């Protein structure tokens, strides 16, 4: 996949392994980095994202905390302000809300409030999204809550290579980063990932597939069905697929460049339609490039309903069929 640097040694890793690899590399490079959260220590995380770290770095740097999300993020803020680089795990995105106040009222505002005297270089990691037959509250994708709040960055990788590079960038970032991991594809495929630490820059989208007729903007776990839909449509419509990778701040340059070429677009995400990122992207497009626009931007998203229990989750999630249909609608408008 595009800008991959694969000089030097590489390993074939899954996305979740790339998370661990990124954490381990940064912990080796920078002793201020520590990992904290529920079950991240001995257990290695409920998805094994922190496996082996406890053994390598010990309990002072890979910290099993009490079950208290506000406490985790709140103490991590204190740590970050005091010179550490905490990476706090929220076990599932659906359990991030008890920490919402600490994230929006403090992590996001400490720099502003203190005019730069205190900063909050921390990462809040959380697996997000549906499709793994999990219980209630385990399938959320509410990234739009965080993209609306100034002071936060929000990153969502879709490949193992990007995962490691973006996570390292997030840890090195001087500001708080919400790092959302598409757990549906934690183990879906492997990719060559350099052994050495490297950065994939925050704030840059990437074109996963070039096309001429319709631009489709997506991210995270929806990148794969979107690419699949593009392939299915190969003989009909030339689809460009842009993987946003960072959803705050958005890479307007890449979005507009693609759109100005195609004049038609769709946005695909799992989150509910109303108030989701698709609306923001659509608004940006028409603000900056209305004169190029040849069809309404189609929002192919989760429904405006709570995420259903898993017997129905396949219907909830946008998949290739809905995406194909949506793109066709845009192409044929």
């Amino acid at each position: 996949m595009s800008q991959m640097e694969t000089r030097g040694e590489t390993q074939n890793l899954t996305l979740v392994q790339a998370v661990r690899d990124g954490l381990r590399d940064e912990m080796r490079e920078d002793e201020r980095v520590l990992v904290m959260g529920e079950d991240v220590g001995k257990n290695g995380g409920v998805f094994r994202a922190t496996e082996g770290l406890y053994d390598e770095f010990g309990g002072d740097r890979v910290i099993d905390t009490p079950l208290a999300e506000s406490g985790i993020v709140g103490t991590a803020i204190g740590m970050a302000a005091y010179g550490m680089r905490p990476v706090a795990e929220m076990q599932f995105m659906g359990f991030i809300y008890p920490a919402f106040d600490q994230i929006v009222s403090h992590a996001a505002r400490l720099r502003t409030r203190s005019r730069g005297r205190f900063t909050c270089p921390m990462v809040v990691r959380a697996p997000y999204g549906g499709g793994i037959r999990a219980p209630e509250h385990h399938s959320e994708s509410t990234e739009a809550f965080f993209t609306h709040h100034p002071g936060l960055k929000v990153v969502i990788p879709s490949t193992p290579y990007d995962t490691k590079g973006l996570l390292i960038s997030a840890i090195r970032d001087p500001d708080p980063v919400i790092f959302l991991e598409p757990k549906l594809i934690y183990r879906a495929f492997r990719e060559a990932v350099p052994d050495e630490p490297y950065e994939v820059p925050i704030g840059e989208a990437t074109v996963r597939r070039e096309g001429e007729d319709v631009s489709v903007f997506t991210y995270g776990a929806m990148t794969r069905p979107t690419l699949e839909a593009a392939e299915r449509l190969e003989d009909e419509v030339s689809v460009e697929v842009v993987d946003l990778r960072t959803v705050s701040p958005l890479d307007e340059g890449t979005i507009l460049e693609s759109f100005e070429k195609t004049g038609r677009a769709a946005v695909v995400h799992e989150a509910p339609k109303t108030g989701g990122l698709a609306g923001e992207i659509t608004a940006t497009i028409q603000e900056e490039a209305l004169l190029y626009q040849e069809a309404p931007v189609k929002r192919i998203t989760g429904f405006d309903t709570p995420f259903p229990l898993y017997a129905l989750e396949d219907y909830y999630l946008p998949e290739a069929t809905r995406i194909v249909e949506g793109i066709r609608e845009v192409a044929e408008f």
Partner: protein
Amino acid sequence: MSVLQRDSGEQIQVLSENGQVTDESQLPDLTEDELVEMYRYMKLARHFDQRAVSLQRQGRMGTYPPLSGQEGAQIASAFALDDEDWLFPSYREHGASLVRGLSLKRTLLYWMGHEAGNAIPEEANIFTVSVPIATQVCHATGAAWASKLQGGDKAFICHFGDGATSEGDFHEGLNFAGVFDTPNVFFCNNNQWAISVPRERQTASETLAQKAEAYGFEGVQVDGMDPLAVYEVTKRAVEKAKDPGEGELRPTLIEAVQYRFGAHTTADDPSVYREEEEVEQWKAKDPIPRMETFLLENGYLDTEGVEAIEESVKEEVAEAIDEAESVTRPEPEEIFKHVYEGMPERLREQAAEFEALRETYGDDAFLEGH
């Protein structure tokens, strides 16, 4: 405010690990039939649990949280309620919910990913399962408070784990209960682990019961694998909730010390974080043989009785599984229902658009992906 039975040496216990009565004075006032019924529920819960785990293994059910080891606390605490009382469960209270009238079929359906499993029947005073840890504590306080304001005379029991005591909502819910003197019983299933995090890592306080000190009401620690002690302690708390003594506050925090024999959920591998030895030690306290010995030795039950119960619980569980598995996948329109009382226009459009697509492409087009 007295905090009873502060440390483990002082836990309330009625039956020893061998099923011998250690404290006659605390023997609950239960008939033979009731005692046998409690035992049968415990057996039923245990067998259900084993079958549920194997259903998950066979791909017939999603992630499931087992309860084995915790039957004593679950069954006895639910048993101590009066008919009109309410239960606010966490996600692991299949046994307690069963006693209170939630069928095994519904519990299975829920873990099979059907919303219908959570549609508590009107006649059962059980709140829906709360997955986000400790959040239900506030709901239980609120409902109890409402009942008190309405002049009701009911108790509201709320179950949660040791891990839950670290959450802000535990604190806020109990604090409100103290201030508004609500008829609550806060029942902490301290099973020593919050997934992989041991009790000692959860808090530096010696007991969880002593946390009641912060809210001005009573905290009690009980042997949670002793069904008779659990029953007795809960019963007293329920009574106090309804009719507190002079100067006493209604709420109680009960810490039921126990152990989860199995994994946290079927997605968990406990061998990564705990020793088999520890599990074995706690298995010696298994509430079921303990209760069985008590019943046998007191002549409330004989070995045929035990066997008959074993047979009947097997049948009951098998039947529940058949019933649950014969329920077909819900229709996708269920997704759009019950979001609001009425369906907003935009939702109606989304449902219609989706239905049209489904008609065009057929169901399989949507199911293949994942």
